């Protein structure tokens, strides 16, 4: 039993650290820049992706023996599209104000390479429980990455976190660097965080420090 637990934990940890979808695999970058002008939006987007990934991996894993290998990619696409529609409708109903800002990006989860690639690489070859763990790990890695970028951008851009003002001067909110929440700031934050993680990896862990270097 304990070996089983360890392997589940390894699978989960791999998604969060070893193969972090955003910083390591450099997949699905669009939302990483688009919705992270605030911690709240980034986190909600992460939750949406987490939900979709767990459900897609579970569905694919359950019906993997019935899918003809020749039509597996279209099958994944329809499974993903179905779960994205579910997420989309739920968010439109219960999180109206957030949905107005990022509805388009929620719908575009369907085109995320990371969801499709986990279905193909992992869920198609594994049983239900490991597939769910893998989806949860990858989704969690994605959520943490988005939240991290969101923290940097919201703090620098607005002096706030999760919508609460933190930096004050003479009773007025301080905005240290407005550029951080502008479109350009997203790209800067992304590049610098990725570079910083590479540096930490090379300096302290003896890695090659080539996250995203494949591109």
């Amino acid at each position, binding site marked *: 039993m304990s070996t089983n637990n360890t392997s589940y934990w390894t699978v989960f940890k791999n998604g969060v650290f070893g193969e972090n979808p955003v910083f390591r695999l450099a997949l699905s970058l669009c939302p990483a820049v688009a919705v992270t002008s605030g911690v709240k939006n980034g986190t909600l987007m992460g939750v949406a992706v987490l939900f979709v990934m767990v459900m897609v991996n579970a569905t694919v894993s359950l019906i993997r023996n019935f899918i003809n290998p020749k039509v597996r990619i279209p099958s994944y696409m329809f499974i993903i599209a179905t779960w994205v529609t579910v997420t989309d409708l739920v968010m439109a109903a219960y999180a109206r104000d957030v949905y107005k800002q990022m509805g*388009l990006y929620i719908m575009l989860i369907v085109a995320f390479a990371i969801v499709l690639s986990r279905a193909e690489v992992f869920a198609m070859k594994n049983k239900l429980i490991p597939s769910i763990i893998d989806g949860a790990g990858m989704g969690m890695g994605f959520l943490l990455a988005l939240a991290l970028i969101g923290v940097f951008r919201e703090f620098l851009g607005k002096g706030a976190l999760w919508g609460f003002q933190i930096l004050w001067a003479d009773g007025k909110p301080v905005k240290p660097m407005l550029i951080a929440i502008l479109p*350009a700031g997203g790209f800067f934050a992304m*590049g610098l965080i990725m570079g910083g993680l590479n540096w930490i990896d090379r300096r302290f862990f003896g890695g090659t420090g080539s996250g995203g270097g494949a591109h």
Partner: protein
Amino acid sequence: MGEKVFTIFIASALINNFVFARYLGLCIFFGVTKKMETAVGMSFTFTGVMVIGAALNWAIYNYIMTPLHIGFLKIVIFIGVIAAFVQAADTIMKKVTPALYYKLGIYLALITTNCIILAVPLINADEHYGLFESMALALGSGAGFSLALIIMASIREKLELADVPKSMQGLPISFVLTGLIALAFLGFSGMITL
């Protein structure tokens, strides 16, 4: 009418440029801009698929989905239509113009799950655009994306010669570069008020 179509075209190409202002299509944007040749090939394929895909989806949305009240299925249906169309284009091109196929065929495979290709029909549906407006959005987005690809490819060719710190090599420095271009594109905002 004509004025609105033109406005949509300019706005989607420059002000709301998909890469620099809406951050879509980044995977392909960073993937194919290492060489000028691939960037140009991708631009043509992309714009073509986008315009035809938008027209097909516009027709299906307005003549089939709206009368049947199945608008909520748009994600599933649009992605199916685009995948089927790209597959068909792939097969037809291989048969009819093999020369063109060997030049542009590889890009077709990459395009199916691209976010911009899917985003254009979704925006058209949300904004209730007519046929000409949808076409203007598709063409404008294609032009904007091509512009972004070509600018980035020409800068990255120079970047090969630059001395970049080891940790920043590859994707990180490309992100910073894109940020600088996005900063320049901010200058277009406010040019037209929609």
